[in-house]
Each structure stands twice: as C-alpha cells, then as structure tokens.
C-alpha cells in the first residue's frame, strides 16, 4: 500500500542545543489510519507532528506527502492541504463560529454559497446545530463545543491528512470520552489519515490504529498496533511506559460492536401491564426494559413496579448506563459498574436498543483476546525467531 505520509530520517536540532529534539525518525503512515505518537514530555512527539506541516522546520530529513516531497514547498500552501487541531483549539475570538470554520475555504478562494453549505455540513457533522451555533462567538461555547469547532475547522477543505496535537487534552474526562467516541465514529465515515499526539497511553490505545512510542532519547522505540505494543513490548522502556494493568487496558482494544451482545427482554413503554408481567414471568430476570416507539431505552421496571397500584408511565428506574456501538469494552465495563441493574445497554447511532453488555460478555471477550494473542505471538515467533517486533522498533 502506498504511504500517505512518509518521514525519512527526520531530525530536528534547535539552535544552541546540544541534544537533538527529534533524532532520525523514519515512519510510513498509510491512508485512512490513525497513527498516535505517544511518549513522555520532551520526547519529540509534538516536534515530529509539527514538522509534518512545517510549523517547525526540520533540520534534516524529508517529508513525503502523497508521494510528493514537500520538505521545501511553500509552507502556507502545504498547510492548506493538512488539517490542524491543537490542544488550546485557537479559535479566533473575534470571528463567528461559521467564519472560524470557513478559514481555509476562504484562503482557497471558494465561492460564498459553497462555503456556507460546507460550514453547515461540518457543524452538523460535529453535532452542533448550525442554526444555533453558526453566528455565535467562541466565548459563548463550552470547552468541548470549542474543540468540536476546532475539528470542524480542520476538516473544512476536506484535507486528506489531519494533524491533531493533544486535541482532547484540556477537556474534562467525561466530555473527553464522549468526544473520543464521536471522533472515532466520524473517522469511520471520513477515513482521514490522522497523526495524533498524546501523552496518555490509554488514549493512544483507544484512538490508534498504530502507535509510535517515543523514548527519552527522542527516537521511536516501537511502532506497532496497540495490541502488539501491549502484548509484545519491544523493550523495557515500552513495557514501563504502557505500565501495569495491561489486561485491563486491552479492554480498550475491543469495541462493543465486535463482541456478541447479550439479549434482554424489552417491551414498548405503552405495553399493558398484564402483558409485561406475563413477559417477565417467561424470562428469568428481575427487570424488564421499556423502550419507546423508536426502540430507544426509557426505563427499567421490576415485577414490583408493575404490581403497584399507582402504576403509570413514570414508575421504574430511568435508564442511565448506555454505550454506543463504537464504545470500547472498557467504557461498557465502566457504565456497567454504575448501573443499578448491572448491565450496560448498547444503542446504535439513532439511540435504539441493540443489546446489552454484562460481566459474562466482558469475561468471554477477555478470554478470546488472550487466546488470539497467544496464537499471534506463536505465529510471529515462528516467522521471526529473532524476536523482531512488528514494523520494527528503534
């Protein structure tokens, strides 16, 4: 497969500094994949990212984008072909959201109508209702909303490549989780080639198709799939960096949609209560899940709720623990632990019920994963008895 981005012996030395900031990085990034650069602070991951759009000019080495050597082309033109998202977002405070999103299309000289249509499309894509947000100013938005605008702005001219520098780093954990999931879902549609920097190994495992771990020596220690990094760390540094709890982290590798979901008895919320009771009798469960006419989960009701004299549409427990199909098993486990019923409900993009994840689902997935990895390690060992790791290390 042709590489979308190829870095050849990319090196950065800041003037007056003995040590290299980035030491001889070689990398091939394929079209449509998310490559995460991760490592401790000062390891060169951000410098590497910023050399790709030449916000930082490399000291030596080449940058090849879509087969074209862009190391010496006009940097302004180059950057209009590459989306760029930074941690602080950097929205222009004196411009409306629409005008912010339209920055690159305006630079490229698009027509007015085309820009307006594109801005609305993008705002919808990042779940911001255009009619409400188009004419607002950045200060009127929350941190999470601003970062959505930042992502929309980076995608405005539909660049094949996006660079993201800790895009969710400054956002509270709950919103971050939601933005990560939304972004992964979006990525399935847009299939961009993404280079993503983070210092958080958990985020790297969740977001990355492949992960490049940078070490204190400003070189790549290992560049491989998350699974390979967790199961076959190339060296002690990688092992240390990925840290303990590797099995728990591997729950981040499995998406809810890839496991066999459990079933739960459901009924439309307008069900007659005799029928509901009859249904509960048939199955061996304490609760029945009520869904609305679009099959969106509404409430849990128990036998006791159904027997209450004042039975009405509002009796029962509201549904809290819901996860989308692209959530990880780790997310699902988290939700499950907070759920009063002990299961996480899986819903599709429209919010409709698709199944449940319970502790058995998680255990089965863990066992499968373990078996698969063992098999793969055996195969890898067979093909590469010298113990080389996938894609090579430092």
């Amino acid at each position, binding site marked *: 497969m042709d590489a979308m981005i190829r870095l050849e012996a990319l090196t950065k030395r800041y003037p007056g500094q003995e040590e290299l900031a980035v030491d001889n990085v070689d990398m091939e990034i394929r079209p449509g994949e998310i490559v995460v650069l991760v490592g401790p602070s000062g390891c060169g991951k951000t410098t590497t990212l910023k050399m790709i*759009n030449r*916000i930082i000019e490399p000291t030596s080495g080449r940058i090849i984008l879509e087969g074209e050597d862009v190391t010496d082309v006009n940097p*302004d*033109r*180059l*950057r*209009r072909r590459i989306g*760029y998202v*930074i*941690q*602080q*977002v*950097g*929205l*222009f*405070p*004196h*411009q*409306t959201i*629409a*005008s912010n999103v339209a*920055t*690159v299309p*305006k*630079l490229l*000289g*698009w027509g*007015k109508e085309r*820009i307006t249509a594109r801005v609305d499309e993008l705002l919808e894509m990042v779940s911001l209702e255009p009619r409400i947000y*188009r*004419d607002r*100013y*950045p*200060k009127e938005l929350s941190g999470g909303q601003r970062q959505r605008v*930042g992502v929309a*702005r*980076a995608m405005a001219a539909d660049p094949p490549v996006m*660079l993201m520098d800790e895009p969710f780093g400054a956002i509270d954990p709950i919103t971050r989780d939601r933005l990560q999931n939304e972004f992964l879902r979006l990525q399935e549609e847009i299939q961009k080639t993404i280079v993503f920097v983070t210092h958080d190994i958990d985020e790297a495992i969740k977001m990355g198709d492949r992960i490049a771990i940078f070490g204190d020596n400003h070189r790549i220690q290992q560049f491989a799939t998350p699974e390979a990094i967790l199961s076959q760390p190339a060296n002690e540094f990688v092992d240390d960096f990925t840290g303990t709890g590797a099995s728990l982290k591997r729950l981040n590798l499995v998406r809810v949609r890839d496991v066999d979901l459990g079933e739960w008895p459901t009924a439309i919320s307008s069900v007659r209560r005799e029928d509901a009771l009859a249904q509960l009798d048939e199955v061996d469960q304490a609760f029945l899940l009520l869904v609305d006419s679009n099959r969106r989960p509404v409430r849990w009701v128990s036998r006791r709720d159904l027997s209450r004299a004042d039975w009405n549409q509002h009796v029962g427990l509201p549904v809290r623990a819901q996860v989308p199909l692209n959530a990880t098993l780790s997310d699902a486990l988290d939700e499950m632990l907070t759920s009063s019923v002990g299961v996480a409900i899986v819903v599709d993009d429209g919010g409709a019920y698709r199944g449940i994840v319970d502790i058995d689902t998680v255990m089965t997935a863990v066992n499968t994963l373990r078996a698969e990895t063992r098999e793969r390690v055996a195969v890898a060992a067979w093909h590469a008895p010298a113990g080389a790791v996938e894609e090579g290390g430092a």
Partner: protein
Amino acid sequence: MAVTGADPRLAAEQAGSPSRLRALVSDPAKAWNTFAIPLIVLIALAALYQYLGGVELTSREAARLNQPELILRARQHVVLSVQIAAWVIAIAVPLGIMLTRPWAKRLTPIFVGIANAGQAIPSIGLLTILAIAIGVGQRGAVIGVTAYCILPVLRNTLVGIQQVDDSIIEAGRGMGMTRQAVLWRIEMPLAVPIVLAGVRTALILAVGTITLGALVGAGTLGVIINSGVVGFSNPVLITGAVLTASVALLIDWVAGIAETVLRPKGL
C-alpha cells in the same frame, strides 16, 4: 478579503455597530453612563453663563470674553487636538506593528526609549525649543505635542499585538494563513481595544498639553487662560479654565463611545 466583502454574516457584523450605539442608550442605567458627561458639561457651561451675567466686565475683559473670540479659540483647540491625535496614530501604530515583527524586535528598546524621552522632556521646554527652531505658530506646537503623545499609543500597540494568544496565531499559521493575513485578520483586530485605549490617553494628553500652544503663538483656549493670568482677571481665568475642561471632557466622551463601538464583537 474580496470573498467576504459581500458575506451576509460580515454585513450583519457591520450592522452591529449602530445597534451597539443603540445599546448605549437602551436602558436607563446605560443611558445615564452615556450621557452623564455631556450633562455635567452643560451644567458647568450654564453656571458659567450665569456667573458672567452677574459681573461687570472691563473693556479689556470684554475684548476676550465675546462670542467670536471664544468660538475661535475653542475651534483652534479642538482642531489642533484632533490633528495631533491623527499624527500620533499615523506614526505610532505602524511603528508599533513594525516593532512586533520578528525582524525588528531588537529595535523595540530604542524606539520605546525615544518615545519615553519625548514624554519625559517637559512639554513647555520642548515647545519653546521648537518655536526657536522653526518659528512661532501652530506647526511647532503640533510637532511638540505629537512627540509628547506618541508613547501611550506606541506602547499600547506593542502590548496589544503581543498579548494575542500564541495558540490563536499558531492555529492561523497552521491552517496556511500567511504572516500578513495573520497580522491583518487576527493580530490587529484583537489588538484594537488596547490600541484604542492608548489613543484615548493620547487624545486627553493632547487636549491638555495644547493649551501651552498659546505661549508659542498657536492660539487655543490657552490664550484665554493666559490673558486671565496676565491681566489678574478672575472672570477671564475662570472662563478659560471651564471651557478647556469642557472641551477635554467632551473629547474624552467621544473617544469613549468610539472605543465601545469599534471594539470587535466576540471579545
């Protein structure tokens, strides 16, 4: 930006200015803030008129305290102040922009030093030296007071541009905006409130200092004050002082409104 010239959103922003003017008078508290100064000036002028009506003027005093003379001096005062402000903006803002560019950053201390000196030298001394050098009249007064007023605008332009968040500039550059585009579409608009505050300070300095122009033949309301001092005449002295203060307050009031209206939306 040719593309956005006809942008309906931009048009909406421009239409925003009159609505912000309206906002200044929309509710009673705001209207009070907006019109307190002109009201005070009106009261002061009415009191002055009342006072002058009750005193017997000597022929010498009457030569100063008549309508054509007062209007002439007030007009000189306002025109020279505005001229000075225009020169100050024309010199200090481009200079400030230049000194924030990477290639000229090293020169910043030199120019700020010169501007500091301009303000540190007593203005009456500066005006006298200029009068000797280029002759008496308005030209020397304008040059002297302009030199005196450069510093606040220069300093505020520097600070206004430097305070723009680095991440905003990085985002702009990272999307392929040229340095020029970043300067004109991001840095300058975001610096506007601070630059305007500097201009307002300079304008107030100019209105106050230009009274000294009377001593070098530049006219202004300083002439009235001066002849009051020389002729030991309280009515003339008081009239000169009240009119000078009124002009200063009104010019500051106009500058304040300009500050509110010209501030970019969203800040």
